[in-house]
């Protein structure tokens, strides 16, 4: 059982730089064909100040922590038993190359189903940039399966 006292806990904020190379890499790895995600001229023509981060990129920025499995390790979860249940984003100002983003992650809930055979962890992350602009939120549901 995951310690329910994690509910309501906020993890230390992460400050992370958004790099153009990282954005191009992500675009290539996902087969992105729209040039605004790889070509700065195209991005600017589309009204962005630099390459924009794609819709799911907050998730990737959150992996830039010293320990990318921070909450999994903190909660004592077996990594091999983790499945991604749901993921949701809301959007504020665009995230672009050159931005410095601050991510603050809070554990919203932990509960179980099937008599404890599956546990669910809900994490909500808020993001702001160097100008203090609201970049939106992401909310993830992690499912921990018990293979026994």
């Amino acid at each position, binding site marked *: 059982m995951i310690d329910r006292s994690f509910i309501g806990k906020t993890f230390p904020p992460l400050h992370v730089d958004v790099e153009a190379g990282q954005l191009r890499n*992500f675009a290539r*790895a996902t087969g992105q*064909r729209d040039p605004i995600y790889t070509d700065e001229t195209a991005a600017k023509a589309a009204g962005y100040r630099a390459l924009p981060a*794609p819709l799911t990129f907050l998730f990737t920025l*959150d992996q*830039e922590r010293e320990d990318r499995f921070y909450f999994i390790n903190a909660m004592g979860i077996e990594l*091999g038993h983790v499945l991604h249940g749901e993921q949701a984003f809301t*959007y504020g100002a*665009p995230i672009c190359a050159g931005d410095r983003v601050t991510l603050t992650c809070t554990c919203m809930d932990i509960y179980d189903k099937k008599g404890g055979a599956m546990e669910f962890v809900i994490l909500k992350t808020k993001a702001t940039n160097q100008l203090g602009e609201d970049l939106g939120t992401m909310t993830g549901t992690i499912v921990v399966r018990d293979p026994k």
Partner: protein
Amino acid sequence: MSTFAHDVTFAGVKVGDSLPAVTSKPISRTTLALFAGASGDHNPIHIDIDFAKAAGMPDVFAHGMLGMAYLGHLLTAWVPQRAVREFSTRFVSITQVHAVVTCTGRVVEKREGNLVALEIEAADQNGDVKLAGKAVVELP
């Protein structure tokens, strides 16, 4: 410069309209290795078959966030990214190596404030649903 012409307007869409479908290339083990690196999701269950088997899985499988990135392509091929206000998905079932994922979507509601609600889906070559999601876009 952009090859993506976005001319969708609130007045021009109606409930039931379909978004143009987007289909991925087959997901190879290389795809998963490159996505692990590029996305920062280094969970070995997606790239290391020894780890996957030790965790009780028959093989590695695709990152859920890879499928969600493909769903994102569906949205941003239809409207500019800044039109997207909300985007969410459930990961319905595991996406296997070699899957070819097709993303589809349709307009389910028009709301005040020029908002349009969509239901979106990613399915493999057998028609098995892998991701089932929703989005809200704000149109001119």
